[in-house]
């Protein structure tokens, strides 16, 4: 334990020293995310799937579409749900067992960005109001952990959802019946992109890698939609942001989000 913290302190000093010169430990510019690679259709058994690799962080998302009952207060909407898990093979510190608060936060932040953007038109998922709806479940697993799981997971889930094929059901005698070979594209309205920024001292860096992540004073994840509006926020970490820093972060998230959205569009063939 003690050894690790000494290395961290040395590394933090190095990271801080470099920042004073406007440099980062892996040579990136402050507002430069790591290279993003998205592969879609990686799990043929899923209704939609994607593998996102942001630098050395890798996450696989699979979408399953199945019949469900609606939530009692939302009988005119289908169901959408995101989960996330850090697999024990992803990092030596990852353990099996019930999800820790940071993993719960990860899943909820990814879910919130997609849900609040209205990315999926859930009103098209209703077979019979209040009784029978289609549920879309986007489950993500971290297979390699090098920091910034929020964005990697969000990109993987979004790409998996865009490429999902929705099976067709019809109500026959009050029972939903699957119509074979009649799949349709997922009803996508917008592409939400999350951009996570870290605060170290007075510096704001985009897409912190794991070394930088360990040194963050605070972080913020801002999700924007295709119209460049802000749809979700999550501040984390042990310090705070000033108002001016938050304004700067929102501008950065829109600019960086635009580039990332293009990469996801290219990889998925989306046109929104």
């Amino acid at each position, binding site marked *: 334990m003690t050894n690790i913290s000494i290395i961290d302190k040395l590394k933090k000093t190095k990271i801080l020293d470099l920042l004073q010169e406007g440099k980062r430990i892996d040579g990136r510019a402050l507002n430069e995310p790591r290279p993003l690679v998205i592969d879609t259709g990686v799990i043929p058994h899923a209704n939609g799937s994607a593998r996102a690799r942001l630098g050395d962080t890798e996450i696989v998302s699979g979408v399953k579409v199945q019949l469900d009952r609606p939530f009692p207060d939302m009988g005119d909407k289908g169901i959408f749900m995101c989960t996330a898990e850090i697999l024990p093979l992803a990092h030596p510190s990852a353990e099996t067992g019930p999800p820790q608060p940071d993993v719960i936060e990860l899943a909820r932040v990814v879910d919130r960005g997609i849900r609040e953007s209205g990315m999926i038109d859930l009103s098209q998922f209703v077979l019979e109001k209040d009784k029978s709806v289609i549920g879309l479940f986007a489950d993500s697993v971290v297979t390699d952990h090098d920091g910034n799981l929020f964005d990697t997971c969000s990109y993987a889930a979004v790409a998996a959802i865009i490429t999902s094929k929705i099976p067709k059901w019809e109500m026959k005698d009050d029972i939903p019946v699957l119509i074979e070979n009649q799949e349709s594209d997922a009803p996508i309205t917008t592409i939400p992109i999350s951009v996570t920024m870290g605060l170290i001292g007075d510096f704001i860096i985009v897409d912190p890698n794991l070394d930088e992540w360990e040194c963050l004073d*605070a972080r913020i994840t801002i999700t924007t939609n295709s119209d460049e509006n802000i749809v979700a926020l999550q501040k984390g970490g042990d310090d705070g942001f000033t108002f001016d820093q938050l304004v700067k972060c929102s501008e950065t998230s829109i600019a960086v989000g635009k580039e990332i959205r293009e990469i996801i569009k290219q990889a998925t063939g989306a046109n929104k």
Partner: protein
Amino acid sequence: MGGREANVVLLDENGIRSDGRKVNETRKVTIKAGVLKNASGSAYIEFGGNKILAGVFGPRDVHPKHMSNPDTGILRVRYHMEPFSVSERKKPAPSRREIEISKVITEALRPAVMLEKFPRTALDVYLEVLQADGGTRCAALDAASVAIADAGIPMRDLVCACAAGKAADTIILDVNNEEDQAGQADMPIGYMPNLGKITLLQLDGVLTTDEYKKCIELGLEGCKQVYEIQKNALREKYFSDGDNN
């Protein structure tokens, strides 16, 4: 948010909200410090219809021991809603939502509390929502700050919190339950006024960049109002016998 519809008028033609407030007005907030006998510090807040108790224990020994840190004390927060606090009974076990809120409140408080003065110890903060009416995380954070101060723990500032949001295409202060369900955006904000730092910030709902700035600015105004009420609650307890400053 989430597209839920309701048959309520969130904002009438005179700019008055469903509960009679103006757009830039908070609900009634009352805070009382030192309400529990056994806790090191405590507070009770009523924030509109929210009723929340905060109790602080410590600095005290850390159990389990491996969680202790030789460089600093640790802060542990549990935000919990009683089964009877909402209209449909809530299962007593902590939900994923409560675990996330506990985490964001911990991170909102930590910059304010001088934990480095208490190495190898834990400061436990328990936040019990007796009745929920929208904006519980902000109200709970407000009560937690006062309770920590009441426990005599050195702090850099009090953390005050208030939400802003959007309903009926208008930016509003202190989103209530109805506006949360049927409105367009909810942005809880936690703030340390003396240090100018925003330590809690979340959002769900769609905002343009201008609305985003306006929302934060309005939320900070609400925070500052709550800040005065927090300080008064502490004055009330510690200076109520004659000396009012």
